């Protein structure tokens, strides 16, 4: 077993490399993904090793990137598109929403469009406008897309490979604030099987920490926040379970519900604005299925109903340990 400690970013690179190795129809495309290796260096070295036809610097046009990826997919390729930053996915929103998400349905299964759209997302990196957003809810509402976000280097490595072999389009949100955080990665872990037999490899949540008093639900960048909060809460005598969703569409409802039925309380944590955000769907669903076991309404900790603010105040916009603990207090005081 070749387990190594590596940063999240390098685990993604390794996953992409493995995907390109495993299937010569897989290709990486986007702005600056070639020689530069992407502005975050996630595709570092790939063009050198796989060539310009497998790792493609495209014109600067996101609709064109996703639109041509769809055509390539129809021709049997497996394009992995990189969107440079969260805020720049919107020019591609039409192609993603009206074409990518719908072609399998429109064709009654005759056309598969196994396109992966990688989006570095989330804040906390002191960036300028459009570089810190969390638009995942805007994709999860659209049927036909799978929307996922890994939180650990191992999941980064596993999930990117699963996304590439998925016959369905996957919107792959990468918590850019976690790119430099390290973890163990087993590079020999098998590519998740998509035969439909076992659990959905892209749609299964993970219990990141067990607990008994409250369930913290998080994904991507906020899993670390939830885990830190759980530490803080433990110090105060509260035992928090942390669920790492991994998938936002679909939600692994059974895992969450099972946890909440045990703890009786639920706090959802994400960076996206709370209003009409992922926590709303979770709260609605959890309440529906745990109505008689819930001791308090599901609490949501997320971004505010403001555009992502300037860097100097983002620490107060983003959910942090204090705000999670505050929400837990609210849940406990009910």
């Amino acid at each position, binding site marked *: 077993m070749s387990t190594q400690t590596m940063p999240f970013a390098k685990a993604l690179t390794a996953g992409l490399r493995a995907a390109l190795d495993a299937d010569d129809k897989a290709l990486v495309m986007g702005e600056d993904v070639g020689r530069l290796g992407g502005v975050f260096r996630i595709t570092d070295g790939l063009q050198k090793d796989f060539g310009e036809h497998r790792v493609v610097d495209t014109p600067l046009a996101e609709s064109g990137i996703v639109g*041509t990826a769809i055509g390539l997919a129809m021709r049997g390729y497996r394009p992995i598109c990189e969107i440079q930053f969260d805020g720049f996915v919107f020019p591609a929103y039409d192609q993603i929403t009206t074409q990518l998400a719908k072609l399998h349905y429109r064709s009654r299964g005759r056309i598969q469009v196994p396109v992966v759209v990688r989006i570095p997302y989330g804040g906390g990196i002191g960036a300028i406008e459009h570089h810190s957003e969390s638009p995942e809810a805007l994709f999860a509402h659209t049927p036909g897309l799978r929307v996922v976000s890994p939180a650990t280097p191992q999941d980064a490595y596993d999930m990117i490979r699963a996304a590439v072999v998925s016959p369905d389009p996957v919107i792959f949100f990468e918590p850019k604030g976690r790119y430099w955080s390290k973890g163990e990665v087993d590079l020999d872990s098998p590519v998740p099987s998509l035969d439909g037999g076992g659990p959905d490899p892209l749609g299964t949540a993970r219990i990141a920490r067990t607990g008994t008093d409250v369930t913290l639900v998080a994904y991507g960048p906020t899993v670390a926040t939830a885990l830190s909060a759980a530490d803080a809460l433990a110090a105060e005598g509260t035992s928090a379970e942390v669920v790492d969703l991994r998938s936002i569409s679909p939600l692994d409802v059974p895992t969450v519900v099972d946890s909440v039925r045990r703890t009786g309380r639920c706090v959802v944590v994400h960076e996206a604005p709370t209003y009409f955000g992922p926590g709303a769907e979770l709260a609605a669903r959890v309440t529906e299925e745990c109505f008689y076991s819930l001791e308090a309404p599901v609490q949501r900790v997320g971004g505010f109903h403001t555009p992502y603010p300037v860097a100097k105040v983002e620490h107060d916009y983003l959910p942090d340990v204090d705000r999670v603990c505050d929400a837990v207090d609210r849940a406990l005081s009910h």
Partner: protein
Amino acid sequence: MLNAPEGSDGASAEGVPFVQLVGPDGRRTEGAQDAAYRDRTAHLGTEELRTMYRDMVLTRRFDDESTALQRQGELGLYPQGRGQEAAQVGSARALRPQDFVFPSYREHGVLQVRGVDPVDRLRIYRGTEHGGWDPADHRVHLNTLVLGSQTLHATGYALGLQRDGLVGTGDPERDTAVVTYFGDGASSQGDVSEALVFAAVNNAPVVFFCQNNQWAISEPTSRQTRVPLYKRGEGFGIPGVRVDGNDVLASYAVMTEALERAYAGGGPTFVEAYTYRMGAHTTSDDPTRYRERAEEEEWALRDPIDRLAALLRAEDRWDDDWAAGVAADAETLAERLRADVRSIEDPPSVSMFDHVYATPQAQVETERAWFTTYQDETAEAAR
């Protein structure tokens, strides 16, 4: 060369030349400027011309019958192609079997030539499918309704062909191209320009076939561009040509040139087929609200089917028995449509949950299960 009818397109009515091989009177043109295109049709004998004529007649019959079916309530909507048969049939007849087509929604003539089943073509308008056929069967993608989107898919597909080594081999069985159809209105969409960027930069084997039928619903082409559309590609590095889209031979010839370029690795071409939407935008549209009868009448004189018939007659390629056969085929097509469209069954409601994903997906399965139970209970309760 023929000037475009006046007033139909302010920007380009005044003497913009186009490739024309057969005049509205059905006589072959003789201008030296089109000699190279003329050569491209030299091999087309009576049989080939009759095939095109038949394609066009069947396309129009399909059009008329579909319109009638819509009027009878058998279809929800239908977008007529009348007037554009030559542009569509001529260009499609230039394709090789292995070429791939990305249509918009008015390409009935292209679908006819490619062999897409006529009943399948109407499923979308009957409201039983969003698609209707298997794109792999005839190498024709489904209709795309979000205007211009398909031009990027076509370009991407062409990039795939390049990667597959199917460009510039010199082998006519292998070299493959893509053609995407779109309208004068769609040309304004950002996606079309991005497709030109991607195609040009990569020298992709794709033909951008823009049918300028003078109207985008109620807007004349002058609302989309102030210069003739065939120039659109130039600033991207893509050569352009305007062809008389009501001349099936010219449409064929121009398309063979564009395809040759693509096959040989010479990259994309932008073709503007200058034609006219003789009917309404769709069966829901009322063109009297925005255009003059006089314009319609002027264009009626350029009817592409009449023109080819006149050519066949003028060159003694016409034969009444053969023509009667074509008419009979058209009648058979119409009968088939009348019978088979009516008998397209409504899909079961639960089928709406099919194919959202290629793999099992929890949310869909939860809702499907709920719906199935709900439907059963409702049926139970109604009993």
